[in-house]
């Protein structure tokens, strides 16, 4: 394991001790799962729209380079300026250069996972630009100087009391209250001033339509509309997989997204932006910039199997249904994308040296695969990445970095034993006699025994018992 490797095991065992955190997650996830099930109660409809959604995403991936070119051409025609970034550093530099040109001091942000991936806030703040999250959940997390713990509900790890204390502590005009309506109203008042005075608005993109050069954003709060309408400059950042071919591809994907994410038939706002302010229009930004980010995605795309990761529409349902995520919460993953999708995406984006542990944060129960609205074979990819982590290769950065000589030897011994009846008989007889004498603290055994009882070996092997019953060995 490399030095910079992120320790999921340690962080998750700390999270498991935190009863408050576990309670917060359990409650939230149970609610989300049952509400989502109601939205998709009509199985025929679910199957139909899911197949359609998957086909839309796959069709987009099948023509990805052409669609990105078309998106660029149509955006440009509409007056949206398109920028390409291979890395997050490059994307940050593009955003900064726009800011500097317009001399921006204050930025309001709508929710954007790609900007989390870029660590954009920290980057801009170091350069003296105030970057304010305006989605309520993101705002809370930013006040708390923490990371989002869920891609849809960033502050899901906190309860009202914790947020009440945070507001009292961090917002000048705050009175202590646990009334959610009052807390929300306080955020409204603080942020309205910021919307009105911000120099630049930054947003993500839920989908970009190649056919029309349209950026689609879904949201409930209106902060996304504020961020993309009030400031004179709007910068949208998107991962290059977010493109769809046609405008008519948007409705099925939005339907799957909002129902899977928050069990709503639709979000309060569906915001489709196709151009900056035109002559004669009285509001809207004068400039729109679209930053298309690769950050490892083109590498993922090159592999036939791993490519399916790029179908994701970031609904977060796989998190809500994951037995691991719902116990340890989002922070244990120490990644912008936690849960099942994070466990397959992060290792591919940041490399297996650093993220090789994440594909193991999975029981392979398949719950995520069953609910994924675009049918990503998450568990298969998980297995593939486990294998990539221990076999040198070039499909994923850091392949082979988790190879361990001891483990390789164990497997080799195992396969040799199983290939030879004599060796097998000898080994099982030996374990029947001596296995129970092995101390629970043996290095490889310890992983299992430190939280579980050590299994007992039967003192007669199955083969011996079978022989006694007159069943011959083959």
């Amino acid at each position: 394991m490399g030095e910079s490797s992120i320790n999921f095991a340690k962080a998750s065992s700390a999270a498991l001790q935190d009863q408050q955190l576990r309670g917060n997650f359990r409650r939230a996830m149970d609610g989300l799962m049952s509400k989502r099930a109601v939205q998709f109660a009509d199985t025929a409809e679910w199957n139909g729209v899911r197949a359609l959604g998957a086909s839309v995403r796959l069709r987009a991936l099948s023509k990805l380079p052409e669609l990105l070119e078309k998106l660029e051409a149509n955006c440009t025609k509409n007056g949206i300026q398109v920028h390409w970034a291979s890395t997050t550093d490059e994307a940050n530099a593009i955003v900064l250069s726009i800011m500097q040109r317009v001399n921006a001091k204050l930025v309001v942000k709508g929710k954007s996972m790609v900007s989390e991936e870029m660590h954009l806030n920290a980057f801009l703040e170091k350069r003296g630009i105030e970057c304010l999250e305006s989605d309520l959940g993101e705002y809370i997390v930013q006040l708390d100087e923490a990371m989002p713990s869920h891609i849809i509900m960033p502050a899901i790890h906190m309860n009202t009391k914790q947020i009440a204390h945070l507001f009292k502590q961090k917002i000048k005009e705050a009175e202590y209250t646990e009334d959610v309506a009052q807390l929300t109203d306080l955020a409204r008042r603080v942020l309205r001033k910021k919307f009105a005075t911000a120099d630049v608005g930054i947003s993500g993109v839920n989908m970009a339509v190649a056919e029309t050069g349209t950026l689609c954003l879904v949201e409930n709060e209106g902060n996304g509309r504020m961020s993309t309408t009030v400031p004179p400059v709007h910068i949208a950042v998107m991962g290059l997989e977010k493109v769809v071919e046609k405008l008519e591809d948007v409705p099925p994907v939005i339907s799957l997204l909002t129902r899977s994410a928050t069990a709503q038939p639709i979000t309060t706002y569906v915001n489709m932006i196709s151009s900056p302010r035109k002559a004669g229009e009285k509001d809207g930004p004068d400039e729109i910039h679209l930053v298309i980010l690769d950050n490892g995605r083109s590498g993922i795309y090159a592999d036939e199997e791993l490519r399916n990761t790029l179908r994701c529409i970031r609904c977060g349902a796989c998190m809500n249904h994951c037995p691991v995520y719902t116990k340890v919460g989002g922070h244990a993953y120490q990644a912008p994308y936690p849960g099942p999708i994070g466990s397959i995406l992060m290792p591919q984006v940041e490399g297996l040296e650093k993220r090789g542990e994440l594909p193991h944060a999975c029981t392979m129960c398949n719950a995520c695969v069953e609910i994924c609205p675009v049918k990503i074979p998450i568990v298969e990819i998980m297995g593939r990445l486990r294998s990539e982590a221990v076999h040198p290769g070039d499909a994923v950065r850091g392949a082979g970095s988790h190879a361990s000589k001891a483990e390789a030897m164990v497997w080799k011994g195992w396969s040799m034993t199983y290939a030879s009846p004599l060796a097998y008989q000898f080994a099982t007889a030996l374990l029947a006699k001596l296995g129970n004498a092995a101390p629970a603290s043996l290095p490889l055994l310890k992983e299992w025994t430190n939280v579980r009882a050590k299994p007992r070996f039967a003192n007669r092997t199955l083969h011996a018992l079978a022989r006694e019953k007159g069943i011959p060995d083959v």
Partner: protein
Amino acid sequence: MSESRNAILGKLRAGRDAHPLTPPESDFAVLRNKRWDGAERLERIKRMMEAVHTEFLETTEADWPTDVQAFLKAQGTRNLLFGPATEAGGRLSAEWAEGGPELIPYADRVETFKERLFDGIDAGITTTLGAIADTGSLIVWPTPEEPRLMSLVPHMHLALLRADALYDTFWQAMTENRWADGMPTNALLISGPSKTADIEQTLAYGVHGPKRLVVVVIR
């Protein structure tokens, strides 16, 4: 920058050409088959939108300006932002009686009255292009005469909906009206007042956008 563009596109092309992908057919039948008949559509729209705190005001072609004024007066609304150059705006200014809430025209670039917009406006009124039964959503296309912020910044948004401009699905509305031939600067679906559940999953209304959405149904 264009170096990255070419590198990215080149890599994508090589990756795809090495392993081309044949997507399954996109079958839109699941959307095409969602149908409700006339009266049912509006009922469904009301039910779905009321579930997320939208209010409905029933009126007629002849009376809507008067009814809107009476409604706002009863709510204690101080003023109403409107688009003076639209047909609806013309009716409002012509039929607005003395002593009601003040009518404020959105007649200039937002820069000229941003402060007032954010601080001193209670309500805004816009037209819509119809509503969608499947999800309970209004279709709003802002225009130079009815700018984008009218339906966003004021604390209350009133939306005029003609009872015969109803669609089954979002997909039907965009395909039948050939949206793909020319999208406006901004197209919106609005399905309720602004809301959030970011504090412990507790629903709260009016976080950044309007606290109240009032659909004025014109029959």
